[in-house]
């Protein structure tokens, strides 16, 4: 078994909304192994992006532990955290929003290297030139500004910025959602190549089940702050156990017009109503009295397969 790179244990993140407390991440535990891609799927508002940001320490956690390479980084101070930040990078959904329009690509990349005290000037130049060609940008890209690039190329810049620091784990937050289909495939292929060549691990956050099915080794399904099912990609698609996972799969339109869909299996939308019992029971087609009173724990339902449903 591969070595565990990241281990998250019983993590909680809370936001204050007026006088109320929103439990965006509510007791999540999982591991990412060396060289593994873990997909995190769920609908908007389920807490998947907050979970990614909490792991990167961009949002403070309320409880729990984040362990990277055996070091608990949950409560490290800024200077103690710095070397771990280099190992833990992020790619954002909107590449334009995450690039400063007044900085050339050279400044963007060089700042990251300088902040982390990586090499002297010629060494930094060499690394920047290398990474720019590695992600498939033209060699003269370094002296140009973000607006001179198309959406797909900007996402390549975002990837270059994450990779120039030679990280171990990259949190990808919807990296292809803002891109057109033809560009999506280019970026996904690039991420696959980089993972193979550089031995990267990914935490891949997406609402797009088709992309996660293709891209992840293991998949976590998140609903209202909790993991409701986790399994290897092959197991999850062959044998989904949680009614929410099944509903998600059934709702994705197939590009085969002869494969007609049935009625939508669930009604309503994600709520923030966290009364007792299962979070999904108000939308679940199979909910019983037990579901309304008792919250199901995430339990093993097969080899490496967990689901949080009384009837899974």
């Amino acid at each position, binding site marked *: 078994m591969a070595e565990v790179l990241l281990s998250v244990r019983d993590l909680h993140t809370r936001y204050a909304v007026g006088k109320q407390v929103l439990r965006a991440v509510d007791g999540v535990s999982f591991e990412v192994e060396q060289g593994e891609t873990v997909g995190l799927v769920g609908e908007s508002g389920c807490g998947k992006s907050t979970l990614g940001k909490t792991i990167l320490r961009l949002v403070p956690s309320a409880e729990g532990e984040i362990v990277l390479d055996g070091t608990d980084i949950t409560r490290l101070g800024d200077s103690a955290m710095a070397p771990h930040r280099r190992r833990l990078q992020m790619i954002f959904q909107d590449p334009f929003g995450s690039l400063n329009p007044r900085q050339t690509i050279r400044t963007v990349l060089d700042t990251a290297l300088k902040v982390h005290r990586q090499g002297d000037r010629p060494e930094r130049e060499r690394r920047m030139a290398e990474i720019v060609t590695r992600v498939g940008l033209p060699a003269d890209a370094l002296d140009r500004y973000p607006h001179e690039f198309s959406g797909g190329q900007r996402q390549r810049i975002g990837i270059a910025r994450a990779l120039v620091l030679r990280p171990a784990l990259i949190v990808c937050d919807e990296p292809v959602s803002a891109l057109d289909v033809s560009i999506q495939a*280019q970026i996904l292929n690039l991420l*696959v190549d980089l993972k193979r060549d550089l031995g990267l691990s990914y935490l891949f956050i997406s609402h797009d089940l088709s992309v996660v099915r293709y891209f992840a080794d293991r998949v976590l399904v998140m609903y209202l702050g909790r993991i409701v099912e986790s399994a290897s990609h092959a197991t999850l698609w062959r044998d989904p156990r949680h009614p929410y996972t099944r*509903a998600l799969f059934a709702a994705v339109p*197939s590009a085969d*017009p002869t494969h007609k869909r049935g009625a939508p299996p669930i009604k309503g*939308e994600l709520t923030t109503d966290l009364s007792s019992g299962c979070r999904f029971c108000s939308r679940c087609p199979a909910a019983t009295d037990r579901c309304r009173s008792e919250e199901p724990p995430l339990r093993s339902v097969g080899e490496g397969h967990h689901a949080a449903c009384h009837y899974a």
Partner: protein
Amino acid sequence: MSLLAVENLSVAFPGHVAVREVSFAIEPGETLALVGESGCGKSVTAFSVMRLLPPNARIVSGRILFEGGDLLAASPPEMRAIRGKQVSLIQQEPMTSLNPVLSIGAQIGEVIRHHDKLSRRATRARSIELLDLVSIPDAHRRIDDYPHNLSGGMRQRVMIAMAVACGPKLLIADEPTTALDVTTQAQVLDLLDDLRRQLSMAVLLITHDLGVVAQWADRINVMYAGRIVEQAGIQPFFARPMHPYSRGLLGARVDVDADEHYSSNRLSEIPGSVGSAAGEAGCPFAPRCPLVEPSCRAAPPPLLAFEAERRVACPVTLEAAHHG
């Protein structure tokens, strides 16, 4: 006679032409999908039909015939009588299309009273009926809610209620579910399809998602760089996409039913980007096309008939298809 016939439409913005010689027709009661990537001109085409183009856009040529009358020749008051009554539009982001300081009842009522002389009481009753029709629970209470009280899916249902309030013959849905989650998307598209049948209206469905097209449309028009490159019925299109761009799009898409994984399959790419079409004298797809021949670069290929109901703007593909 077709319900809507767009003939040879070209729309220009300062510095570039967004829509080039586009022609298509919609028959009463059908769902026609207009598919393409961002910047291909699909939304500009829709806005031309509504005559809601931004002030710097210019219609260079063409006619838009709705039940035989040219919308491009209609006066502003005539257009106001058509919008909402004969042709309606729903857009991608319901929050920006709704007025945040008016209750949803007031906004639906405004549409009704613009077209029909109804008392306030009758308008309110009709608004509640419409909210019921789009499956908003507790319609008689919800009618006094404001947009911020509603979820994204509910807001899109309110937009649909406003759009169908006066029983239009044509509904233009511009990326109606792109901002919604996948479970909500299925609910909203099923609702649109039910309403299409109940009210016998035609739908022009603008989307970039081929899965949505396969499940909810009758015919497809694929656009690339301002031109229609393929027109076909849904079954023949998905069984055998013909234009190299159509094939590239379907190949690059990860389908949720396909058992593909990065460890065994590489996704097929369309090299380059739409930007490479700039300055191309011939076929706009030529710089990215795997089948490109020198003749492709001379002039943009016209849409040529292949079978009944099927037209493809690629002589190279058609030549190969005719020879077996």
